[in-house]
């Protein structure tokens, strides 16, 4: 078995020592720190991004809360405004209604008075007409010429007895 031949033992050990030492020192001083830096850099980046994401999330939550608050506030305000407007309108309507009622009442009473007045007037006219017709009729039938005063006296005298 060539492995047990001591001829090249020293050579093997020598070159093993040379190459392994070189490899060890090279990896220790050059390669591994490089990889470690990359890994560390990546971890830092990940941590950074994670914390940033957390921060942004919190900010978003805050903004959402603000928006909700404002929405609620706006709702309350608008509700109040609507209520106020409704009240004002109702007041306005009732006042206008009452003024209209008053107007109407006045107009009705005016009209009634007017009607009464005209009724009186008409009655007077009718009376006059009646008396003149009666005067004419009496004049034609009895051939009696009555003065207005006499005629009125007669009518006044008998006014109540025909009813």
């Amino acid at each position, binding site marked *: 078995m060539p492995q047990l031949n001591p001829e090249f033992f020293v050579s093997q050990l020598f070159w*093993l020592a040379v*190459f392994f030492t070189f*490899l060890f020192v090279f*990896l220790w001083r*050059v390669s591994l720190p*490089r990889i470690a830096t*990359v890994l560390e850099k990546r971890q830092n980046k990940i941590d950074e991004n994670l914390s940033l994401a957390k921060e942004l999330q919190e900010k978003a939550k805050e903004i959402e809360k603000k928006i909700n608050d404002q929405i609620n506030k706006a709702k309350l305000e608008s509700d109040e405004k609507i209520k106020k407007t409704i009240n004002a309108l109702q007041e306005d309507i009732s006042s206008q209604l009452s003024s209209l009622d008053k107007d109407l009442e006045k107009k009705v009473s005016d009209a009634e008075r007017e009607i009464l007045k005209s009724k009186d007037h008409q009655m007077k006219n009718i009376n006059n007409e009646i008396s003149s017709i009666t005067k004419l009729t009496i004049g034609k039938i009895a051939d009696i010429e009555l003065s207005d005063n006499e005629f009125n006296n007669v009518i006044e005298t008998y006014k109540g007895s025909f009813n």
Partner: protein
Amino acid sequence: MAAKDSPLKQFEIDPISNIELGGYNISFTNSSFAMLITVLVITLFLTLTVNTRSIIPSRMQLISELMYNFIAQLLSDTVGDNGKKYFPFVFSLFMFVLIGNMVGMIPYQFTFTSHIIVTFALAAVVFIGVTILGFINHGIKFFTFFYIPGVPFYMHPLLIPIEVISYLSRPISLSVRLFANMLAGHTLLKVFAGFVVSMPFFTGVFPLAFIVALTGLEILIAFLQAYVFAILTCLYINDAYHLH
């Protein structure tokens, strides 16, 4: 052993250039060449793929990071926070054994991890390092490592020698495990490759198919043995911190 087509011929060491230093033969051999290739592959791959240092990694960079995290996880799982100091060493060990095994899977390429002297040297570094670490951490109390608490006193004369022997055989088991796996795998491949050639036409397809399957298995073993080497190193380091 010297037969021309022996399955063990692939493990023979051929000097590429003869070098002598202080009376010792330190020739640059095919084994040294395989180590050189291994070291080049590891250093170039880990350097070039991470060159851009991009936060969003390329596929190749991802492989480097994956290896880094794999060993870092292994070390933190077995040793905990104390293990961070030994990360470069364990990582180098894992990569050296892993890529050494993988380079050995290339046809006609030498497998230096199939040489007991290489694996034993690596295991000895781990063993001596861990023992020194144990003494640094616990001083003379480190010897209580061999004393198992909660055992009847009359068992200690038996158990303490067993513990000592088991401790001392760590470098042997660690090195022989890797060496034997590599040796057996490559020998088996070579044996079946011999069948492909020596069998009559057509029938040689069957050992060839077996070689294909076995190559897959060998790649798995190459990874597994590197992993075992690394995890056992981690466990030994853990022992040096926490005695029983």
